[in-house]
């Protein structure tokens, strides 16, 4: 059950679910157009905590590339790739080094915060408009709230379906 192919197939299934979430998720109002909450990160969190290390980063990269094939590579794709990859890398690192000392909710809150912080930073660097700092509190807060939502939904899903997603149910 722990073969690489098996893990890859499971990662792909979570990726497809993430693509759907990504496509139906509306962009955040007002600030800089194109910034998203990152609800699709739910699948990265579920992947990380059921399939283990490297799942979140794979799911995130595959998801953003697939979504960009649908929508065309533009600012939105660029922002969601950057925000997604940075937040997935941070969650991977915390999971890898501090698995025992941290929980799903806190880690996905951190992921949500870094997801939006990265998108904001990319926009500021791209546009060279430092006054965009006025959007930062709003973006960070919504990122953390998205993380709370993703963390609690993810923890619930993992409790109910964790064994099914990782395939451990079939072993027993």
């Amino acid at each position, binding site marked *: 059950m722990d073969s690489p192919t098996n893990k890859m197939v499971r990662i792909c299934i979570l990726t497809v679910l993430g693509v759907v979430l990504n496509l139906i998720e509306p962009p955040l109002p*007002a600030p*800089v*157009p*194109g910034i998203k909450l990152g609800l699709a990160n739910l699948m990265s969190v579920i992947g990380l905590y059921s399939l283990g290390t490297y799942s979140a980063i794979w799911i995130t990269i595959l998801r953003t590339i697939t979504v960009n094939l649908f929508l*065309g590579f*533009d*600012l*939105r794709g660029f922002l969601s790739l950057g925000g997604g990859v940075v937040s997935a890398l941070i969650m991977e690192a*915390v999971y890898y080094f*501090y698995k*025992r*000392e*941290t*929980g799903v*909710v*806190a*880690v996905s*809150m*951190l992921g949500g*915060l870094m997801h939006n*912080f990265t998108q904001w930073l990319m926009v500021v660097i*791209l*546009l*060279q*408009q*430092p*006054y*965009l*700092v*006025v*959007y*930062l*509190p709003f973006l*960070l*807060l919504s990122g*953390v709230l998205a993380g709370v939502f993703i963390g609690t939904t993810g923890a619930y899903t993992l409790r109910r379906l964790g064994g099914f997603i990782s395939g451990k149910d079939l072993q027993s």
Partner: protein
Amino acid sequence: MKRGDLLIYLFIIFMLLSSFLIYFFLNRIGGANQRIKSVVVEYKRQVFTEIPLPSEKRTVELKGSWGVLILNLDGYKIRVNPASPHYCPDKICMNQGWISEPPQTIVCLPNRIIIYYRGGAQIDGLTH
């Protein structure tokens, strides 16, 4: 609560608090009651035009990197006219609709155009 979680929460609170402090600080030095003086249009980070507000109903044509954006002005309200969709490949600028006060900003990345208010509450603090 686990020990690592506590550190994460502290980090999150630190980030949120400092961003809110920066926000309120800028609001203060900008002067919260300051009026909007004008709208600034930048093309490739150079000020292309600055129009005093309020403005009567009029349109302004902006030549961008991709096409010509038609700007609608009405009082303090501004939008990119959606009538010529082929002038912007992603149409984010057009779908945004009307903006009416700072810090609302219209950004058209394909055309390299940024439109923002000057003299409004927060913006002044940083640009001057």
